[in-house]
């Protein structure tokens, strides 16, 4: 179990950030990801491993003023 965008999220076994994004159908070129409060560089998505209890935030741009 991890915390994803503030909510509990079940992950079956270890996975990378890139794998999580693929599983969520999120285009990695259009988001920023925070892993346990550290912002990740996009190049590191496929080698950053997510462990049980980790906190992940995935953000993108939405309408605003």
């Amino acid at each position, binding site marked *: 179990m991890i915390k994803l*965008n503030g909510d509990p999220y079940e992950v079956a076994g270890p996975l990378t950030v890139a794998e999580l994004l693929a599983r*969520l159908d999120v285009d990695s070129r259009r988001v*920023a990801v925070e892993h346990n409060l550290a912002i990740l560089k996009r190049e590191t998505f496929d080698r950053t491993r997510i462990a049980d209890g980790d906190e992940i935030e995935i953000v993108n741009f939405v309408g605003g*003023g």
Partner: protein
Amino acid sequence: MDTFTIAGKTFSSRLIVGTGKYSSPAVMVQAHEASGAEMITVAVRRVNLDRTKESLLDYIDASKYFLLPNTAGCYTADEAVRTARLGREVGLSNWVKLEVIGDEKTLFPDNEALLEATRVLVREGFVVLPYTSDDPVVCRKLEDAGAAAVMPLGAPIGSGLGIQNANNIRIIREFARVPVIVDAGVGTASDAALAMELGADGVLMNTAIAGAQAPIAMAEAMKLAVRAGRLAYLSGRIPRKMYANASSPVEGLVGR
């Protein structure tokens, strides 16, 4: 050509527009087009995990518009800094429209926290455009902290009340060595024109266009108003006088 430059980047349009509150993406796209704006603000929010295929970026041509991520909704310097960093990491801009809100009802800025966040982000190489009170002293402090422009409010965000303290905007312009962008409070075209006539270098708005009954036409009205106000400012208006001063000759009247 009357251009203006922020942190070395030159714009020919002095109107900056938002992407919030539009009835549909199609209306937003056409309003952006009609506004002639070159810089567009966006907000940074959690991805909606139920609708991950939807993206605002599908509707914004990043080769045509310069994106300005904001930190709207942040109430502390830490939150704003975190949001700014995330916005930068999306990868389209190291610029930030920095907002640190101090009050929920008025959305007035917390200028103390704003200054703190400005200092942190300037140190990290951000181009910081802080949304601030219409207070010349605060604007000067922000400039001293390294802000690339100052963005005093005309009136509360989304209020459409127009420029509430015209004299302060004038003083801010006189004091500032960086561009002054009136951000928030515009309700209609004359408000935007007034901001420019007071000497603002630009105007930033969202609700005045997105919330109008005909947003695309209002976007065009704002484009013209900003241009008209700017031209009037550059042209040097006549002094105000108490009494009349005839435009037609007083000599040669028939029958006298």
